[in-house]
């Protein structure tokens, strides 16, 4: 029983991390209409940033604001310098360009840091375990990640649901022409959305660094999973991304326990079912 409870916690924690990554993606797709295959690399960059910041300062906690601020700046630069120009290009161009970004980001990582695995220490204040029933202990840091992700998710929902800018973003995510109709500064909204998406992915990377170490290509798996989350959740829907991320996190985690060979396939199977039932995602309309 304790084991099962721990699995549920694992699924939740994994799913919430996935949410941070995919919520940015779903908004970027919805509002800007660009695809970014390098989103997983942003996760990787966030994790390496945490490794570097924690290594230099000895303070892991500094890595979180660093990832957020760094992400906002980096995202804004990417959007202004690159993605803005490629919005009108064909999908093929966008796919290949962002594929090239993956390669170049990996190359830059290899040149700036190295090709090694690096562990990022869990912050000492949380380096203890909380007992769960049944002889299993749960790491306090994991619980903290869970709480942080929930807080960020709550903040995002509040922002998108309750503020004026949030309402425009929601409208734009569903119909990108709405931005123009509402007379908003579309360019500003685009920069804002892309920068936030980048910051979220990098924050997720920073949070995940102590959990899974940093290593080359660490964003690849998350890229695929977050795509699945976006497809299941539905076009530009934050709520959809949230529930889909939890669902995918849960299926992936439990799949690994009960059907280790099939875990990767199970998640895609889930997506297939959703496509059959509601092709535009669980939380989108029509």
């Amino acid at each position, binding site marked *: 029983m304790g084991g099962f409870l721990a699995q549920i916690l694992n699924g939740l924690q994994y799913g919430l991390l996935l949410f941070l990554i995919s919520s940015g993606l779903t908004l970027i*797709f919805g509002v800007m*209409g660009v*695809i970014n*295959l390098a989103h997983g690399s942003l996760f990787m960059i966030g994790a390496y940033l945490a490794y570097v910041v924690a290594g230099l300062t000895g303070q892991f906690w500094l890595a979180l604001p660093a990832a957020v601020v760094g992400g906002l700046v980096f995202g804004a630069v990417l959007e202004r310098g690159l993605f803005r120009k490629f919005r009108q290009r*064909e*999908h*093929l*161009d966008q*796919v*290949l*360009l962002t*594929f*090239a970004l993956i*390669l*170049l980001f*990996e*190359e830059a990582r*290899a040149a700036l840091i190295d090709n090694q695995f690096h562990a990022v220490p869990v912050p000492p204040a949380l380096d203890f375990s909380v007992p769960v029933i049944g002889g299993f202990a749960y790491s306090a840091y994991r619980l903290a990640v869970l709480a942080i992700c929930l807080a960020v998710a709550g903040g995002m929902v509040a922002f998108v649901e309750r503020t004026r800018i949030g309402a425009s973003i929601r409208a734009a995510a569903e119909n990108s022409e709405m931005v123009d109709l509402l007379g908003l500064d579309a360019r500003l909204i685009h920069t804002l959305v892309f920068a936030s998406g980048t910051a979220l992915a990098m924050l997720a990377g920073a949070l995940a660094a102590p959990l899974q170490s940093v290593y080359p290509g660490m964003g690849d798996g998350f890229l*695929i999973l977050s*795509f*699945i989350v*976006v*497809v299941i959740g539905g*076009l530009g829907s934050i709520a959809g991304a949230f529930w889909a991320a939890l669902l995918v996190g849960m299926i992936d985690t439990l799949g690994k326990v009960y059907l*280790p*060979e*099939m*875990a*990767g*396939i199970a998640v*895609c*199977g889930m*997506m*297939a079912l959703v*496509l*059959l039932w509601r*092709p*535009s995602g669980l939380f989108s309309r029509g």
Partner: protein
Amino acid sequence: MTRLSTKGHRWLGLGAALLASMPLWAAPYYMQLASSALIAAMFALSLQLLTGGAGLVSLAHAGFFGLGAYTVYLLGGGSSVFVSVPAAMLLSGVAATAIGRLALRTRGFYFLMTTLAFGQMLFFLFHDTSLGGGADGVFIARPGLIWAVTKSARPTVFLLLNLATLSLMYFSLWKLMGTMFGQALAGIRVNEDRMRAMGHDVQGLKLAAFIVSGALAGLAGHMAALTDAFVSPELLGWHRSAEALLMILLGGLGALHGPILGAFALTLARELGQSITERQRLVEGVVILAAVLLLRRGLAGWRQ
């Protein structure tokens, strides 16, 4: 021209003749290199039906390619090519039917993401389970040709076989582009909404293209297995789909023979890159940037 241009046939014929003459003057290594370029060209050409033909960008095609290759393994040793070729195309075609039906329920980026996920599902199927002999890949017995091929004759035989297969594939696709089906695909590529508003069964047409394209990718994969006698799950990885897309872009989206040019150009760039630097990702990244930023119409459009 919206529909895929077929200019440059004369040049294609000359190129084919040059490749066919390689056994007379080239070292085995260069014939092997040409063979792998021919296989890459087949793969990219199969995808061109979708991408250049109907404007669909699929990241699942490495999955179909790999499935075609693994068919040879799944059939067990000693089958004839007359069995393994149809089997590879059938298996990939069936997989493409299933995946296409689901993925085509989405559009645009969602189609892209869905194909990526389903392609990876095929990858996981061979990587995580023991169905295909495991994550490390396996040796396979080559399917039997009509006659026994000696070790030293292999580079020659496979070069000619791959050249013949590519030529046949190209010719069939060229014919297909001239049919109502091909015209309708071209229409979808330019303006899908308009096609739908005109009353075309866009979904059905796309699915048909997806299946044909998947089956042809399977054929390319089969030829890879036949040539290399080795299969591994990495054949199904999505990076390989992206590479095929790169070949298409390099060669030119607007020409049916673009992917062939692109495949040869990329093979050449890799070959040169490997002599200069060990940083392969850098080479590839730079090639893509150059292709996207500078070669807007691809190599095929360059001379026109």
